[in-house]
Structures are given as C-alpha cells and as structure tokens.
C-alpha cells in the first residue's frame, strides 16, 4: 500500500507542481502585448482606469476580466436586459451590473463582482449542469475571446440629423445643462454641446463618465422605443461598436447644417495682430466636416475662449496662433487643410511638400485689412464689401505656350530619350485643382501648379532647369540627389502615390540596336 501511495505521489508531484504554477502564476499572455478586445467583450474594471492601459489593477494582482457579453446572453437564454441591468426612474439605462449600481470603492466593488458572478455561476452549474467558471484563473487572465474589433461610434451630422428628425426636432430630448439654482438638468437653447464636452472619460462625483452617460441615454431610449414598438437604434454592443454593423446604419446624403445660433461668416482677428484678419466662412465648413467637434474639440466655444495669445493654461498651453496654424494637429485650420492635401490626387505633389503652409498661401486666408472693423462678427452685408479672394484663374493663352513635351536624355546610353508630356501634365494638374474648392482657393495663382515639380524657387519666376541644382553626383551632406535620382524621385514618386505606371519601359524605350535586319 505504501509503495502505491509513493507511486502516485511520485507521478503526481511534478504534474501537481506544474498545475499549481500554471494556476498561481500570472498567465504569460497577460505579459505580452494586450490582445485586441473584441467589441462585445467588456473589460471589467474596478475603478476608472485609462482604457488603453494594461488591464491589470494593482500591478501584482490579477488581470482584469474580459467579460464576453454575447456568451452570457446565450447562456442565460433570454433577452431581458433587466436580469442584469437596471433602468432608473427616468427610463435611463444604467450600464454595468445592477447589483453594482451605487457600490463605491474598489474593495466593495470587487467583492460585489465576485459575489454576483460566482453565485450566478454556481447556480447555473447546479441547475443546468453548465460549466461556468468559478476559479480565479478561469476569469482573470482568460483571453478576451474572438469577435469583430471594437471601435467607437461617431455621432456624425447624418446620424445627428436622423435623431433630430426622430425627436421631432426637439433638442431637449438629449441636450441638457445643469442649472445650479434649480439643481436639475435643464435645456437652454443655443447652448447645445457635444456630450463629451461635459462627460469626461472618467466618472466623477458630480458627473457620469461619457461611456456611462451615453449608454444610459442612448440604450435607455432605444429600449423604450423598442418597448413602444417604435423604430429604434441598436441595443446590443455590436450594433454601435463594430464597423460592420455601423455600415448598415442608414445615412443621409446631404444633412443640413445644424442651427445653434452661430454666424454664417465671421472675421477672425486679434487685438494687435500684425497680419491681416481672416474671413472665415463658418457655414461653408459646417457641411464639410463630420461633426462640430472635428474643430470644436473640447467645447462649442470659439477658439479664443481657451486659446490665448500667450500660453495660458486653459488652452492646454497651446497659443491661439498655434491653434490655428499647427500643421500636425487634426483640429487646427492648417492641420486639417494639410490632411486634405494628402488625400486623393493631391498626394502626387503634396506627399513631398513637407513644409506646409507654403509662404505664398498665407494671404489666401489673411486677406482682410490688418485693422479690423470694430465688430468681429460680420453681417452678410458687411462681408460683401471685402475683397473676394482670388480663385484659380483659367490657364491663360500664354500659359498655353508652355513646352508641350520635354525630352530627357540622362540615360542616353541605355535608353532612347524619355519623353515628358509637360503640357499634358500641367493640364491634368489644373483639372485636379479645379475640381476641389479647397484646392482652388489655395492654388489661387496658376504658378502654384508648377511648384510641385519646380520646387525651392520663388513663385512665378521662370523655373530654373533641374540641372542647376542637381548635378551628376548630388550631395550626401545636404541630402540633395543627383540629377538622375532627382528625375526618378520626382516622376516615379508621383506615379507611385497616384498608382500610375512605374515600370522602366513605361517611360524609357531601350536604345535601338545597332543593326536591325
């Protein structure tokens, strides 16, 4: 008997040790790159942690649980959200477990989670014999499962308009502000703002987080409408948070601009500015952006509310000048314009032009007098008096005198001269620019069409030949390519960006053989 016991101990002990190690240790995939969490999987967090952070709470303890929502729906077999979730007296949907509503503090929430989850799992196991996890490692550290990737839903103009129509044009159904005196949420006309302007990423004592607020309002309303047998938006995770399902949401072709009492046109000018003020066609921009917060990134206020001429705190340290001109920002004027220039056919030239805005483009915006009129906001009539900015004029007759074709003979030894259809390309550029109003404005002078190739030269000057800078050797110190390289980079680079032909023989024809029979 003793020997049998020893046998078993002997055989089991390594296995046991391994099992214990595997069970106790942090699962190793937790230490790797955090896996992509699918849309229907909710990362259960005990407190407000940055969403992008590694889902562990207190470095040394167990990783957060990835909660697979669809799996639970399937296991429970009913579609009643109220089994787990609560709806408050105003019909708002309260995201998260109903047993955890109002439970504060990490420890308390942790215990509540454990109690609710494990109790239910045990019950399931008892009643239906289903293998619901009850051990720590079965939930903590289990991979997030598979499914379509999560992405945020963008409440763009089209979606906004559809909701507005469904609400009979009543903004107050969604928009609200907190009235200090009345101690309640009220609607004030023309103060409507994006949810995120007030509801931040994290829960605060006086404000719910953006996620909680939007789920409460959106899902709650969708549920109510469904209950009333009316058309409603999605109530499940995937409906809003996967690109595939969102693509199925109906879109309005041309949503009208939103009315919030804003001026159609305005003059942007600053006290003591040294450059001309800017006439800004607000209405013109409204329909070209996805939503207001593409520019009004924090509040619906005007830029100068936060951004000041000096680096004030409220603008995040960004001065007003940079707020307009930072070419790397997604919300600045120049930044947005630059992004437009890197899309589509504009790429052919602009992928190489890294120093935007080009100097000659300043007056395209700054065209009003330096000393602005007293009222910064102009009525439509005032605006008429201001000089209309020049749009791209037609290619004039003398422009037609541009060389039609140029023969490039750099590789004369191996190839016949390459024919460069100069005029054809100029006409094509002209056509591309004319198609876009933005491009028409910034290419106000015809010469700007030339500077994509004839770079580093004063605008309008007769272009110097490439050879004058690009010699046969090039300069490594200045990173200036040789003529041979410069031609290829210029031509092939553009062709590459525009997906045009790039083969050697598309431009070059091999030199004729000496003797042909």
């Amino acid at each position, binding site marked *: 008997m003793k020997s049998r016991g020893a046998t078993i101990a002997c055989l089991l002990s390594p296995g046991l040790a391994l099992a214990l190690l595997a069970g106790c240790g942090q699962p190793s995939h937790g230490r790797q790159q955090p896996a992509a969490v699918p849309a229907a999987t909710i990362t259960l967090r005990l407190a407000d942690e940055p969403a992008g952070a590694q889902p562990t709470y207190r470095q040394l303890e167990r990783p957060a649980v990835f909660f697979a929502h669809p799996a639970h729906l399937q296991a429970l077999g009913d579609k009643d959200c109220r089994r787990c979730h609560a709806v408050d007296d105003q019909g708002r949907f309260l995201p998260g477990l109903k047993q955890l509503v109002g439970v504060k503090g990490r420890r308390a929430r942790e215990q509540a989670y454990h109690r609710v989850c494990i109790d239910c799992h045990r019950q399931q196991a008892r009643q239906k014999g289903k293998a619901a996890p009850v051990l720590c490692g079965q939930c903590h550290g289990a991979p997030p499962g598979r499914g379509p990737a999560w992405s945020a839903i963008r409440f763009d103009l089209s979606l906004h308009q559809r909701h507005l129509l469904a609400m009979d044009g009543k903004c107050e159904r969604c928009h609200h502000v907190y009235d200090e005196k009345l101690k309640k949420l009220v609607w004030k006309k023309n103060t409507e703002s994006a949810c995120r302007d007030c509801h931040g990423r994290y829960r605060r004592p006086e404000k719910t987080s953006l996620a909680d607020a939007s789920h409460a309002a959106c899902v709650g309303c969708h549920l109510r409408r469904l209950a009333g047998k009316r058309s409603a938006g999605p109530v499940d995770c995937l409906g809003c948070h996967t690109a595939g399902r969102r693509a199925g949401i109906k879109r309005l072709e041309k949503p009208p601009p939103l009315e919030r009492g804003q001026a159609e046109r305005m003059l942007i000018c600053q006290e003591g500015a040294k450059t001309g003020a800017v006439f800004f066609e607000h209405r013109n921009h409204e329909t070209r952006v996805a939503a207001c917060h593409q520019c009004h990134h924090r509040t619906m206020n005007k830029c100068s509310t936060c951004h000041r001429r000096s680096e004030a705190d409220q603008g995040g340290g960004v001065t007003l000048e940079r707020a307009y001109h930072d070419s790397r920002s997604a919300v600045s004027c120049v930044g947005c314009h630059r992004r437009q220039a*890197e*899309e589509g056919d504009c790429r052919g030239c602009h992928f190489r032009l*890294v120093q935007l805005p080009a100097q000659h483009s300043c007056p395209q915006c700054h065209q009003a007098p330096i000393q602005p009129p007293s009222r910064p906001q102009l009525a439509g009539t005032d605006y008429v008096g201001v000089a209309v900015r020049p749009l791209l004029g037609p290619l004039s007759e003398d422009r037609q005198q541009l060389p039609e074709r140029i023969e490039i003979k750099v590789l004369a030894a191996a190839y016949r001269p390459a024919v460069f259809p100069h005029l054809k390309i100029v006409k094509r550029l002209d056509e591309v620019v004319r198609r876009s109003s933005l491009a028409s404005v910034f290419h106000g002078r015809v010469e700007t069409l030339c500077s994509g190739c004839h770079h580093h030269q004063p605008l309008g000057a007769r272009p110097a030949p490439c050879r004058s800078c690009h010699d046969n050797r090039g300069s*490594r110190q200045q*990173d200036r390519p040789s003529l041979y*390289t410069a031609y290829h980079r210029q031509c*092939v680079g553009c062709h590459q960006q525009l*997906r045009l032909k790039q083969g*050697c*023989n598309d431009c070059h024809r091999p030199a004729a053989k000496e003797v042909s029979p």
Partner: protein
Amino acid sequence: MTISRRGFLGGLAAGTLAAGTAAASAGVKKLPGWPDSYGLLHDTNLCVGCRRCEEACKRVNGLPEPAVPLGDESVFDKMRRTSKDDYTVVNRYRRADGGRPAVYRKHQCMHCQDPCCASVCFVQAFEKTPQGPVLYHPERCVGCRYCVMACPYYALAYEYEQVWTPRVVRCTMCYPRIKKGQQPGCAEACPMGAITFGRRSDLLKLARQRIRKQPDRYIDHIYGEHEFGGTSWLTIGGTPFGELGLHEGAVPTPLPEIGSSYLSVVPLVITIYPGLLAGFYAFSRRREQLSRKETREAVAAALERARQEAENKLQAAAEKAKKEKEKAVAQAVKKAVEEAKKQAGQTGQEA
C-alpha cells in the same frame, strides 16, 4: 608606522573596491567598431521595387541574368531570399492599398559590425575589414556551412551543386569597387537614390536628418544602428521593421557574445576536471585499498582463530589422551595391586 587597525582595514577595503571597479570596467568595455567604415543606407520610403539594384549586382558580380525579368510584378508574389545567383533581392512587404504605395525592402548580407559568420567559422574564413565589408576567404573554407546556419538574416548562400569547390556566396559590399573609390553597384544603379553609400557615421547623420525632416513618414529608428551590435547596412522607413522581415526590437548585444561567454567555461573544465576526478579516483581507490586491507586482516584473524582452535583441540585431545593414559596406568597399577593383594591373600590362606 602606526596605522590603526581600523584605518588599515578601511584602506584594504578601498583597495579591493578600486580593484573591483577596475576589473568591472575592463569587463564591460566594448570596442566601438571601425570608426571610418563604410556602409549603405536603404530608405524603404524611396524604394519603388524596380530591382535595378539586383540587375547591377548581377552585372558587377558576373551572375546570371535575373530569373524573372525586371518589370515583371509577379516576382513579388512570393518572398525571395538571397541565393548563389542572387546576392541581393528586393521583396515587397506590403501591397499598395488605398493611398499608400507598396513597401519594398532590399535584402542582402548586412555586413554586421560583429558578424556571426565570422565568429562561428572554425577556420576564420570570414573577416570584418576596417572598411566595413565582411570578406570571405574561400581558400580555407571547409564547407561546414555553420556560417549559413548562424546568420540571423538568412543572407548567406552556398554553392551546393559544385562538386569540388563549393563556396559560401553573398554580397561583398563590392569590396573591390570600394577599394577603387567607386560606389557599390546597387547604390550606383538605384534610380530613386534609395540606396546611399558612404561612411557609416555619415549615413547615420543623413538618416536622422531625413527622419527629422519628415517625422510623419519615418519611424524614428535606424535599423542596423544597434541591432545585434549593429550592421553596415542601415534601413529606415515608415513601416514597422518587424513587417519588413527584420528582427524588430533586437537586442543591441552582438549574438557572438553568447558564444564567447559559453567558450569561457571551456578552460575551466580543463583545469577543474583533472584535479576533481583524480580526487574521486584516489578516493575510490583508497576505499578499495582499505576494504582490501580489511579483508586481509579478517582473513588473517580467521586463520589465526582456526589455528588456535585446532591447537586447542589438539591440546585437549593430547590432554585427554594423557589423562586416559594416566587413568589406564592407574587402573593398571590398581589392578596389579589388587591382583597382588589377591595373590597375597590366596597365598595367606594357603599358608
């Protein structure tokens, strides 16, 4: 000399410490590599996959024409590697999609700063020259192909079909041309200027300059500056290097150092084993001798005991014999006396 004991000990400790740090600094010192060595910079943002470099490489090295002619896009359908006929290959790592053009990378021997091939060769057939290229000496190559095995970049190839004189073949960084003051063939041929030849230190500056100028288009990293101790071929671009078939996040330690740390144990084995094993031998021999001696003694003791016993037995027997003899004598005497008495009595009666 009156040094307090404490002072003396303190001085000693300081001396040991100083010696310790000196030793440590000797152990962690690293040679910076050849200062003026040449290198090449490949800019994957500029490369358009025209394969002119392949063609030039073949021309310069006298290799057969490309198997797939230049301009035939189908060559990119599968990843190619260097071979005996291609010292360099251009692969496409990302197809053009949306507005983004395709991404290509030229592959060839990287000419490591501390080359694996050189460290693993048991006849030193590879040599890192001060000019940068890693050279191969076929005249002493035995053909074990450990170098091909060890190369982390899969850059070396072997002439398997050669029956008598197979060689390891790979990019030579056009060493003969460099010595003549020319550029390597590929750098000269590249129409896009995606390959730049120059001193490695200059190329690093150039690469940084490009990254600084266009931070949106370049990843702020020069592949080959530090990877596995650095390489003479440098790569920059806007695609994560892991996607370009390079070892993203590679350690800055040269791989040969793993081997050298292992080989440092070898002399220890040679020095420790004989003494240790001789000790074991002496121990087991001694044990054997002892047991043999014990056996001998035990045998002797047993013999002695046997002899003693025999003697005792003999003695006892002798004594017994003696006693019996005495007894017999006494009995005989007694008998004789009685007989005499009897006779005397008879005679007395008769008388």
